[in-house]
């Protein structure tokens, strides 16, 4: 999808890789790395490649964790908080509406302010948790990028699929170069998949990735 739909050059990184092959944006995708043993993302963060991902993020490189990738970034300490069992105790696989609260980021520059995008979720442990101090810091600094909402953009408890605090679906670090989100934009980046809203995020990242590292 990155190469064929977005038209960006794509390299696959293996967990044992010792370098990032010159990537301008590292996407840590979903899946169940190491079988979610112990905790989701707990073992994956020790993968050799993660050390390089951390250094890359420190230099300002774009790092984007999706679903299990978000869990890995939290475990690695690149993003605050943690993802816990869904409040329903069920695995949830369904379409959700997300309100985009930041459009000044490299990942969201092609979205309109407070645009509602339709992106599916597919997880059992996607309930965002952070202690009250961390949560208020995230809100004050505008680090909440995506919130589960109703189709009209209202953030309601009914629209929250997993019990995430403050309906949080995605957050960014203070510097704005590390994004984590539970919903799957790659599953709605082609019309054949039932939606194309995710494409806006990939196009944003592809357009901005090189600029970010150069600046």
């Amino acid at each position, binding site marked *: 999808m990155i190469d064929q739909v977005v038209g960006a050059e794509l390299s696959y990184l293996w967990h044992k890789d010792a370098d990032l092959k010159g990537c301008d944006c590292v996407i840590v995708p979903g899946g169940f790395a190491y079988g979610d043993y112990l905790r989701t993302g707990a073992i994956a963060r020790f993968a050799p490649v993660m050390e390089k991902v951390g250094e890359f993020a420190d230099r300002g490189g774009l790092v984007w964790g999706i679903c299990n990738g978000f869990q890995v970034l*939290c*475990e690695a300490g690149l993003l605050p*908080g*943690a993802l*816990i*069992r869904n*409040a*329903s*105790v069920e695995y949830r696989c369904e379409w959700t509406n997300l309100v985009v609260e930041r459009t000044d980021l490299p990942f969201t520059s092609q979205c309109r302010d407070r645009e509602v995008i339709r992106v599916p979720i597919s997880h059992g442990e996607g309930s965002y948790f*952070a202690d009250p101090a961390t949560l208020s810091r995230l809100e004050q600094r505008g680090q909440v990028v995506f919130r589960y909402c109703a189709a009209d953009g209202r953030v309601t408890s009914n629209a929250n699929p997993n019990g995430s605090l403050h309906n949080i679906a995605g957050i960014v670090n203070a510097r704005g170069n590390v994004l984590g989100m539970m919903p799957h934009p790659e599953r709605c980046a082609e019309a054949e998949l039932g939606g194309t809203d995710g494409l806006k995020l990939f196009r944003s990242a592809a357009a901005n990735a090189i600029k970010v590292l150069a600046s």
Partner: protein
Amino acid sequence: MIARIVVTPKPVVNDPQGITVRQGLATLGFREVSSVRVGKYIEVNLDSTSEQEARQRVEAMCKQLLANHVIEDYRFEIETDGHRRR
């Protein structure tokens, strides 16, 4: 030596598993149960020269990997030659 480690969700963290188990117990007639928290038990066999050393090492293991301090608390006891100490 054996370290017996118990990891539990922090009191402030919602524990949907615990809530569901409590409902199950209530259905079975255990009405006296007011709440349930579900955590995990980890047993670690280790070669340490002293109990104190083992304690320090297990503490480090819990901090670095076995528990996530954002959402979990941990406690452990070390068993040496059949003697248990908290």
